[in-house]
C-alpha cells in the first residue's frame, strides 16, 4: 500500500510540475498575473508530493518491504537502520528520487527568498525549474520507477553494497546532488534572462548567491567522495580520475568559472552572454554527471542496449535541455549584449583568462571521460584513458590560473597597470619564491614539481595578504584597523578565504605527491618494516565479528625513534551477503601526516601481505576544500544580497552603464 501511495504522489508531482512549467512561462510571456501566480504554490506542491514519495520509499526500506524491487536490490534484513535509510539513494531509481526532492527544496527556497525579484522573473525561473522537474519525474515514472513490485517477493534483499555502508557515503550523494541541482537555479535564471531579454547587474546580483551556494555544496560533496575513496577503498589514493569522479568534477570546474564570470557581470555589467553560456554549460554538465553515474553507461555502454528506453530517454532529455537552451541563446543573446569594454590588462581580462582556462580544463576532462565511451559505442574498440592523461593536461592549464589568482584580485577593473602591480606584489613574490626553494631542501628531498606547487600556493597566500593589507591601509583615514576590517564586506573575506583554501589544497596535493612513501611487505608476527621514517611492527591477527560481517583484524604497532606512536587495527572483512572480502584500512590521521595500513591477502594463517603508507599533509587537500566552501558561504551571506537599500542606486548605475555601452557600440 505504501509504495502505491508513493507512486501516486510522484504522478501528482508530475502533473503539478507540468502545470507550473507551462502556466508560469506562458503567463510571463503574455503578462497574465494570475498564471504567473501559479509558480510559487506549485513549487510547494511539487516539493510536498515528492517528499511524500520519498517518505514512502524510506518507509519501505525501514519496514524491510522486499516486495519492492528497489528495496530488495539495495537492502537486507541484517542492514542497520541508518544504512537502510541511506539505501534510498544507494541505487539508480532512488537517487533520481533524491534529485527531484532536492530540486523541490531549491524551488521552495527560490519562492521564499525572491520577494525582491519582479514577479515575471520569479515565474520564469520557477517555470524553467518546473520543466526540468517534468523531465526527471517522467524519466522516473516511465523508465525507472522506484516503487516497482517484485512477484513473488524475495525473502531477503541483496544488501546495500558494503562499500556504501559508511557515514561519508551516506552524506556524499545528498551534498553532491544539492550542488548539481543548485546549478539548475543558475540555469533557470539564465534562461529567464534570455526569455525576457533583461540581463543587467541586478540580474547577476540575484543569481549570484544561489550559484555560490550550489558551488559550495558541490565542493563539499566532491571532497566527501574523495575522503571516502581514501579511507574506504583501502589503497590510500584520494583521486583516481575515474569517470564517476570526473562526472562531478566537470560541473565544478564550469561552476567555478561561472561564479567568477557572475562577479564581473555584477560589478561591471560585462561578460553577459558568456555568463549565460556558462550557466547553461554548468547545468548541462550536472545533468550529464547524474546520468553518467546512474544510468549504468559507465560499467557498460551496452547496458543502454539492454534497456534502450532509459538510454533513449536520457539522450532525448539531454538534447532538449542543452540543444534547446543553446538555440535560445543563439536567438536571444544578441539582445542581452556584451556589456562594457575593458583593457587587455585589467581585472576583467584576468578573470576572462581564468574562465577560459577553467572551461578548457572542463573540456579536456570531458574528452577523456567520453572518448572511450564513444569509441566503445561505435564498436571501434575498447580503450581507457588513465590518470597520466589528466595529470599531463591539468598541470599546464591550472598553473597559470593559480598564478593569476594572486594578481587578479589586486588589479583594477577596466584598466590596470602592470608596473604598479609588479611594485605592489614584488615582496609577495620574493617571499614565496624563497620559501618554495628552501622548504623542499629542509624537507630533505627537492624536486622542480614540488617547488612549483609550493611557489604557486605561497604566492596565493602572500598576495592575498598584500590585498588585505592594501585594503586596510587605503580605507578611510582616521578609522581604526578593527573598524576598517569590520566595514569590509563579507564577500571580500569569502573570496580571500576561498583563495587561501585553494592554496592549502595545492600544498596538500604537492606534498602528498612529492613525499609520500609506501611499502608492500609479507609480514609474520614480530616482523618490522621502515616506511617514511616510521617503524611498523606486525603483532598479531585475530578474528572478530561485526553486525553483518566477520573480519580478520590485525594489530600493528607504529613507532618513531623507538617511541610508540599508535597501535593500528586494519581489517579484512567478509560480509554475509557478499562473496568478496573488503579491505578496511587503519588510518592514524594527523595535521602533517597520515599513517595508513591495510591488509592484503593472507599467505597462511599467521602471515599476511601488508601495505604500509606514509602520507604527508594529505588532510590539507580536504581542508582546502572546506576552506573554499566556507569562503563560498561567507560570500553568499554578504549583506548586499539581503538588504535592498542600495537596490535603486545599483539599478541606476547599471542603466547608466548600459547607456554608455550602447553609445560606444
Amino acid at each position: 500500500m505504501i509504495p502505491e501511495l508513493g507512486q501516486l504522489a510522484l504522478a501528482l508531482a508530475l502533473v503539478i510540475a507540468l502545470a507550473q512549467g507551462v502556466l508560469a512561462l506562458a503567463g510571463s510571456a503574455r503578462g497574465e498575473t494570475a498564471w504567473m501566480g501559479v509558480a510559487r504554490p506549485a513549487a510547494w506542491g511539487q516539493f510536498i508530493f515528492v517528499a511524500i514519495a520519498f517518505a514512502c520509499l524510506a518507509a519501505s526500506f525501514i519496514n524491510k518491504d522486499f516486495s519492492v524491487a528497489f528495496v530488495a536490490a539495495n537492502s537486507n534484513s541484517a542492514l542497520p537502520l541508518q544504512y537502510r535509510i541511506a539505501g534510498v539513494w544507494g541505487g539508480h531509481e532512488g537517487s533520481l528520487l533524491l534529485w527531484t526532492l532536492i530540486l523541490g527544496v531549491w524551488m521552495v527556497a527560490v519562492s521564499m527568498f525572491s520577494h525582491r525579484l519582479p514577479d515575471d522573473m520569479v515565474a520564469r525561473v520557477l517555470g524553467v525549474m518546473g520543466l526540468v522537474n517534468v523531465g526527471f519525474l517522467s524519466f522516473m515514472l516511465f523508465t525507472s520507477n522506484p516503487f516497482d513490485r517484485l512477484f513473488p517477493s524475495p525473502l531477503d534483499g541483496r544488501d546495500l553494497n558494503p562499500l556504501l555502508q559508511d557515514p561519508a557515503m551516506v552524506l556524499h550523494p545528498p551534498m553532491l546532488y544539492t550542488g548539481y541541482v543548485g546549478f539548475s537555479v543558475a540555469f533557470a535564471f539564465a534562461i529567464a534572462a534570455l526569455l525576457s531579454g533583461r540581463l543587467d547587474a541586478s540580474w547577476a546580483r540575484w543569481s549570484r548567491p544561489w550559484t555560490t551556494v550550489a558551488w559550495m555544496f558541490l565542493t563539499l560533496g566532491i571532497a566527501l567522495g574523495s575522503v571516502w575513496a581514501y579511507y574506504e577503498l583501502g589503497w590510500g589514493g584520494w583521486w583516481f580520475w575515474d569517470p564517476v569522479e570526473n562526472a562531478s568534477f566537470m560541473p565544478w570546474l564550469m561552476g567555478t568559472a561561472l561564479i567568477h564570470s557572475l562577479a564581473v557581470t555584477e560589478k561591471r555589467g560585462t561578460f553577459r552572454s558568456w555568463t549565460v553560456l556558462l550557466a547553461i554549460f554548468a547545468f548541462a554538465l550536472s545533468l550529464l554527471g547524474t546520468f553518467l553515474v546512474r544510468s549504468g553507461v559507465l560499467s557498460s555502454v551496452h547496458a543502454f542496449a539492454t534497456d534502450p528506453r532509459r538510454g533513449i530517454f536520457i539522450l532525448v532529455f539531454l538534447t532538449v535541455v542543452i540543444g534547446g537552451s543553446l538555440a535560445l541563446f543563439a536567438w536571444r543573446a544578441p539582445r542581452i549584449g556584451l556589456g562594457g569594454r575593458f583593457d587587455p590588462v585589467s581585472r576583467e581580462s584576468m578573470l576572462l583568462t581564468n574562465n577560459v582556462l577553467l572551461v578548457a580544463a572542463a573540456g579536456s576532462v570531458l574528452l577523456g571521460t567520453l572518448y572511450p565511451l564513444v569509441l566503445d559505442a561505435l564498436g571501434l574498440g575498447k580503450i581507457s584513458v588513465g590518470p597520466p592523461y589528466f595529470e599531463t593536461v591539468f598541470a599546464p592549464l591550472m598553473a597559470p590560473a593559480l598564478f593569476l589568482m594572486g594578481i587578479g584580485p589586486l588589479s583594477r577593473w577596466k584598466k590596470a597597470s602592470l608596473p604598479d602591480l609588479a611594485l605592489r606584489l614584488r615582496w609577495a613574490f620574493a617571499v614565496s619564491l624563497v620559501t618554495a626553494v628552501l622548504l623542499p631542501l629542509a624537507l630533505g628531498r627537492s624536486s622542480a614539481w614540488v617547488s612549483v606547487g609550493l611557489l604557486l600556493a605561497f604566492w596565493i597566500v602572500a598576495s592575498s595578504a598584500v590585498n588585505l593589507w592594501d585594503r586596510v591601509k587605503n580605507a578611510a583615514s582616521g578609522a581604526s584597523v578593527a573598524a576598517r576590517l569590520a566595514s569590509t564586506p563579507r564577500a571580500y573575506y569569502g573570496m580571500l578565504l576561498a583563495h587561501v583554501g585553494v592554496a592549502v589544497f595545492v600544498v596538500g596535493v604537492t606534498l602528498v605527491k612529492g613525499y609520500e612513501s609506501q611499502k608492500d611487505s609479507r609480514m609474520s608476527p614480530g616482523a618490522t618494516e621502515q616506511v617514511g621514517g616510521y617503524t611498523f611492527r606486525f603483532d598479531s591477527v585475530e578474528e572478530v565479528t561485526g553486525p553483518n560481517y566477520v573480519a580478520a583484524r590485525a594489530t600493528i604497532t607504529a613507532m618513531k625513534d623507538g617511541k610508540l606512536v599508535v597501535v593500528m587495527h586494519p581489517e579484512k572483512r567478509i560480509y554475509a551477503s557478499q562473496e568478496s572480502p573488503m579491505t578496511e584500512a587503519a588510518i592514524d590521521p594527523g595535521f602533517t601526516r597520515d599513517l595508513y595500513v591495510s591488509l592484503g591477502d593472507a599467505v597462511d594463517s599467521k602471515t599476511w601481505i601488508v601495505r604500509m603508507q606514509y602520507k604527508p599533509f594529505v588532510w590539507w587537500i580536504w581542508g582546502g576544500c572546506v576552506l573554499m566552501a566556507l569562503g563560498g558561504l561567507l560570500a553568499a551571506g554578504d549583506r548586499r544580497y539581503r538588504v535592498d537599500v542600495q537596490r535603486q542606486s545599483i539599478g541606476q548605475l547599471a542603466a547608466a552603464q548600459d547607456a554608455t555601452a550602447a553609445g560606444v557600440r
Partner: protein
Amino acid sequence: MKPRHKRFAAIAVGVAALGVAAALVLSALNKNLVFFFTPSQVAANEAPQLRDFRIGGLVVPGSLKRQPDGLTVQFIVTDTARSIPVTYRGTLPDLFREGKGVVAQGHLSSDGVFQASEVLAKHDENYMPPEAADAVKKAHAVVQKTGQTLVTDPQAEAKR
C-alpha cells in the same frame, strides 16, 4: 591601433592559444590511451610490443601461485579460447578471485608472460569487469564457429 584592429588581434591571440591548448590535449590523449586486448588477440600477436595495454578475461581456477617472496603472484587469464600467463608484484584487489573476471594493465615480456603493473578492481554488481565479460563473449563466438576450446570454466558457463 584602431579598436577594430585591437579586437582582431585579441581574437587571433585567442584562437592561437586555443589551438595550442587543443594540440597539447590531443597529444596527451594520444600518448596515454590504453588499448584493451583479449587473450585471443594477444595470442594472434595483435597487441603492441612497446606500449602498455590491458588484457581481460577469467582467472583460471587453480592457477594462482605465490612466489617465495610473498609479494609476486602468477596466474593465468583466459577468454576460454586462449590464455595468457600473468605476473604481478603487489597487493591484489579485494575483488580478485580465481574463476572470476579480471582486468590487468601492463606489457608483454619477450617470453610471452604479461607483466602487470596494475590489477584492476572494478566494482560491478556481478563482479565481472565489462571488458573481461566482453573478451569471454568474443571468444565464445569464435569457439562456436570453430567448435574447439582449450579451457572450460563451469562458473563462467553458469553465469550466462
